[in-house]
């Protein structure tokens, strides 16, 4: 190690608190990014793994128009000699024991071996096929069975769409390799006929798996033969399209979480910039001496960057560890949100990818180095003569502050232009947001000077000379205070922005629910995916409920997933009643013409997110795969819907029944007779279906409350990320104040020597840090509002296609102001305490 490096290392170790806090700042920033990435990756890996496992070796699949396929199609394929082929019936169920969600897969053990050999149903298997195919029996992974304390012969209780079924564990699956062992951990394998009973879909299959020859003319010929056999409505597709669709579903959601996680890193970058600038400023004289002794500018530059690299590497290393710990907590939150919004996924373990860790480390070190570039550049400009004091620099900085503010305005303006360049890109939206943040950071020193000078007379009146000194101190140490205030401003503004966005979203959803929930009682089977329930109400249950006394009217809803020319589409079939036009408020199209058209024939409405996602609107035609073949439906209107960001297509029940063979019902809405109390009606309904399928019977109010609870739950991760960004900003302010304390030891020594008591010094510094917090709080409000505006009208619109109403609740603003002052006050306590108790003699001593 050269003497220069040794000198550098000693500088770092002589300031353990400052360096430690900087490392922590980087670590938290990296940890948040890594944790979100790991959680996202784990959830999608878990899904991919289970999808791949269930898909097995299949290259293609035959699926039905409305998700179900007549099992006669399978017989036709076999008769045409198209083998190997295997029927599948699949869905989700919860095992009472262990309260775990399983993917229930129904297979034909005689045909399945070429596709999923690891299930052990092929030749040489010791599975009792007779029992497996005739009785309600199931196979479970050996590892899962062991974890749940189950053995062959045990009876399992499986809840499926509100009905509890008993199946006997007839065998255990023990695949050869670890990857498959993990993949089958959440599988419950049953015979295809058993699955049809469990899911109440006699005579239908979920799909048929095929094994086509490798690419080329043989494959084309094979696929042509398959198509010849298929009836109208059945569709042939590649087996990997399913995973792709799922990745598409959560793309915007993942992106938004990633962007939010980067916020903590941006705030962390300010912290590093602050620390490195401090280290350079504090060593200006020392660097000047080194330069006088012949150390070149390049060597000084590399030295400072080297120090930053050390902080970056240590911080990132720590961040990776913290990230893994944080991810194990976040992954369940994330899985819950995905289950609420998109699809069923059971994430039993964190999948730690080397790529995620490498990205996190690279991002941490890269951000640190980027943040250290300006201070390193500044270090090279250190005058060789050793008489230049920092005050010269502070004066220069104050003089340049208006210029920087101008640059900031340009950067923020460039961000706004970015929004005009493209109307769809989410990245451009975040790019604009980033420009606004950075632009504002440039404007902050100028604003700090203005606000501090403005408040100086007031503080003078309140706290005398100490008050005036406190205000002046913020300006005279602008190179330190400016960056700390900027970091805090950005973190608090992000809190305001995200808070206002969530509140606006919440307000919009509340209004929408009030508008759209007009019936008195709602019934639906329990579903593992809250917002996209496709579970079916048992026909007996539906019939009994309709006949309960006190029911004035009943309207059914069917939700299925169908194939459209634009991809997989959630289709809702409703029975239009007198209030339907009020329930579905149209954004485009006229209610007078849209509803009669929807009632009459092949016409649909699409939800706002659907219209945005697929760029379709009134006058366009949607091609849906139906049981009668592909059919064109005219889009007659676009309606507001905040239930699913994936988008929904809506048609009348009569049109649905005309094109689809399915007669199931996913939900029922009931209007109570005028003389009947809703509570009494609910009680009667529960009695009427007791012992049958366990359906959820809820009042209008209860459903609204449940919806809002789920809504709040889906924003839990967002809240966690906001708090972490504030934690980093808090460390930023603490670091800045510690740096100031160290740097101003001499000034404090002089004050103490001239008669200022320790409490007075403490008061002076506390006032100053609180003032910094107040300035950050004030500056964060307009910035937060701008961020909220961009989040509500740009990011949300571009991510999900929603129109939200911006509401700015005063409590969010007040909370943010208080948060800023309290954060700065708390961060100032330790440095203040240290400075107030330090000996003036020591402080005045030359080094």
């Amino acid at each position: 190690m050269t003497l220069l490096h040794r000198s550098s290392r000693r500088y770092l170790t002589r300031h353990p608190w400052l360096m430690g806090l900087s490392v922590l700042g980087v670590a938290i920033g990296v940890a948040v990014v890594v944790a979100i990435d790991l959680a996202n990756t784990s959830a999608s890996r878990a899904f991919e793994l289970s999808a791949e496992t269930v898909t097995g070796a299949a290259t293609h699949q035959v699926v039905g128009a409305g998700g179900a396929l007549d099992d006669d199609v399978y017989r036709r394929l076999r008769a045409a000699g198209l083998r190997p082929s295997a029927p599948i019936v699949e869905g989700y169920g919860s095992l009472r024991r262990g309260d775990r969600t399983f993917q229930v897969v129904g297979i034909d053990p005689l045909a399945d071996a070429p596709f999923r050999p690891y299930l052990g149903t092929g030749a040489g298997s010791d599975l009792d096929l007779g029992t497996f195919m005739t009785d309600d029996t199931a196979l479970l992974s050996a590892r899962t069975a062991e974890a749940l304390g189950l053995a062959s012969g045990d009876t399992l209780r499986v809840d499926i769409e509100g009905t509890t079924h008993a199946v006997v564990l007839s065998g255990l699956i023990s695949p050869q390799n670890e990857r498959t062992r993990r993949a089958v951990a959440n599988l419950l394998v049953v015979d295809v006929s058993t699955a049809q009973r469990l899911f109440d879909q006699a005579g239908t299959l979920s799909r048929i798996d095929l094994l086509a020859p490798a690419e080329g003319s043989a494959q084309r010929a094979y696929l042509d033969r398959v198509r010849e056999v298929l009836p109208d409505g059945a569709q042939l597709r590649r087996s990997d399209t399913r995973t792709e669709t799922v990745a598409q579903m959560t793309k915007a959601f993942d992106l938004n979480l990633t962007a939010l996680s980067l916020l903590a890193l941006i705030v962390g970058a300010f912290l590093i910039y602050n620390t490195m600038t401090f280290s350079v400023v504090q060593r200006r004289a020392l660097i000047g001496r080194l330069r006088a002794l012949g150390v070149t500018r390049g060597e000084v530059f590399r030295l400072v960057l080297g120090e930053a690299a050390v902080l970056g590497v240590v911080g990132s290393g720590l961040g990776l560890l913290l990230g893994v710990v944080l991810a194990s907590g976040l992954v369940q939150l994330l899985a819950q949100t995905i289950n609420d919004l998109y699809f069923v996924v059971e994430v039993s373990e964190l999948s730690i990818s080397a790529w995620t860790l490498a990205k996190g480390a690279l991002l941490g070190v890269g951000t640190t180095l980027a943040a250290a570039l300006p201070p390193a550049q500044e270090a090279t400009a250190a005058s060789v003569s050793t008489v230049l004091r920092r005050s010269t620099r502070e004066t220069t900085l104050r003089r340049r502050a208006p210029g920087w503010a101008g640059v900031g305005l340009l950067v923020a303006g460039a961000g706004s232009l970015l929004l005009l360049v493209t109307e769809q890109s989410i990245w451009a939206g975040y790019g604009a947001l980033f420009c606004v943040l950075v632009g504002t950071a440039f404007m902050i020193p100028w604003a700090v000077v203005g606000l501090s000078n403005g408040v100086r007379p007031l503080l003078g009146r309140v706290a005398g000379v100490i008050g005036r000194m406190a205000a002046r101190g913020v300006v005279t140490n602008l190179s330190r205070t400016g960056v700390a205030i900027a970091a805090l401003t950005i973190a608090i503004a992000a809190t305001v922005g995200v808070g206002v966005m969530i509140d606006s979203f919440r307000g919009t959803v509340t209004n929408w629910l009030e508008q759209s929930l007009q019936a008195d009682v709602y019934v639906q089977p329990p579903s593992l995916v809250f917002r996209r329930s496709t579970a079916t109400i048992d026909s007996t249950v539906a019939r009994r409920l309709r006949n309960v006394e006190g029911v004035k009217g009943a309207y059914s809803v069917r939700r299925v997933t169908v194939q459209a020319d634009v991809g997989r589409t959630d289709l809702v079939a409703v029975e239009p009643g007198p209030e339907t036009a009020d329930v579905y408020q149209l954004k485009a199209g006229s209610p007078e013409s849209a509803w009669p058209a929807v009632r009459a024939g092949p016409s649909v409405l699409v939800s706002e997110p659907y219209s945005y996602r697929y760029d379709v609107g009134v006058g366009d035609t949607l091609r849906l795969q139906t049981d009668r073949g592909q059919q064109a439906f005219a889009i007659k209107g676009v309606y507001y819907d905040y239930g699913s960001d994936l988008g929904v297509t809506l048609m009348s029940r009569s049109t649905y029944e005309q094109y689809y063979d399915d007669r199931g019902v996913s939900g029922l809405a009931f209007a109570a007779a005028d003389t009947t109390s809703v509570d009494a009606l609910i009680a009667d309904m529960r009695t009427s279906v007791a012992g049958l399928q366990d359906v959820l019977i809820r009042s209008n109010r209860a459903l609204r409350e449940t919806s809002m609870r789920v809504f709040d739950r889906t924003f839990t991760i967002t809240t966690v990320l906001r708090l972490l960004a504030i934690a980093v900003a808090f460390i930023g302010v603490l670091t800045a104040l510690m740096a100031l304390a160290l740097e101003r030891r001499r000034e404090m020594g002089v004050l103490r020597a001239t008669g200022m008591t320790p409490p007075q010094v403490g008061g002076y510094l506390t006032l100053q840090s609180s003032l910094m917090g107040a300035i950050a709080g004030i500056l964060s409000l307009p910035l937060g509002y701008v961020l909220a505006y961009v989040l509500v009208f740009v990011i949300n619109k571009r991510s999900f296609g929603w129109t939200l109403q911006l509401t700015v609740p005063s409590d969010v603003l007040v909370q943010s102001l208080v948060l800023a002052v309290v954060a700065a006050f708390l961060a100032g306590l330790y440095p203040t305490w240290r400075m107030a108790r330090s000996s003036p003699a020591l402080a005045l001593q030359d080094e």
Partner: protein
Amino acid sequence: MPDASSPLVHLDALTKTYREGDQERAVLQDVSLRLERGDFSVLMGRSGAGKSTLLNLISGIDSPTAGRVRIGDTDLTDKSETERTRFRRSHVGFVFQSFNLISTLTVGENVRLPLELAGAAPRATKDRAQALLDRVGLADRADQFPDRLSGGEQQRVAVARALAHEPLLVLADEPTGNLDYDTGQAVLTLLSDLVTDTDTTLLVATHDPEVLPRADRVLHLHGGTLHEEVPEYITSGT
């Protein structure tokens, strides 16, 4: 290495101006000077006369507005900042008024630093530093940090550091300015002994008249121009 017959320091019509607002102020005007190898010269002048500026120009820290600076065979005027820095670290030693030791290096490491910058092997730097510290009477303080030393001791370390890499030229800017009389004299004695032993050229900028009796040449900076006076002890033959 420079030609022994040519002057070690050759300043030719040096001018240095600074811009102050709209005005230009000349700190040095048309300054020419030749210093021979082994010369002990003193540069006198009031505060603000431009002594430090002249030292900065000679060492290559700063570059002149007009004129040329030649040290030995090297013309610094046309060199880049990096080239001047590399020249300085090989051929120039510095002693400052406020010692300017590197607080994050030990006493021994401070002395080794110029050697290491000049590319010497670590073992050699250690031996050389130890020998020099021995010479300035601080051999037992090599492992201590500068803040443990008195002002006089720190300046002795600075002298050792200035001579560690055997420079052609040592520049001292008010080397006794922060020291009491006795300590200042001791440091001067040490400095002059060391440069005499090594035949190093020494230029001391000071307004301390106590330095004059030791000097071969006395230079005065006044109003941006340089005048030379022959020391009295030379004219008197003492």
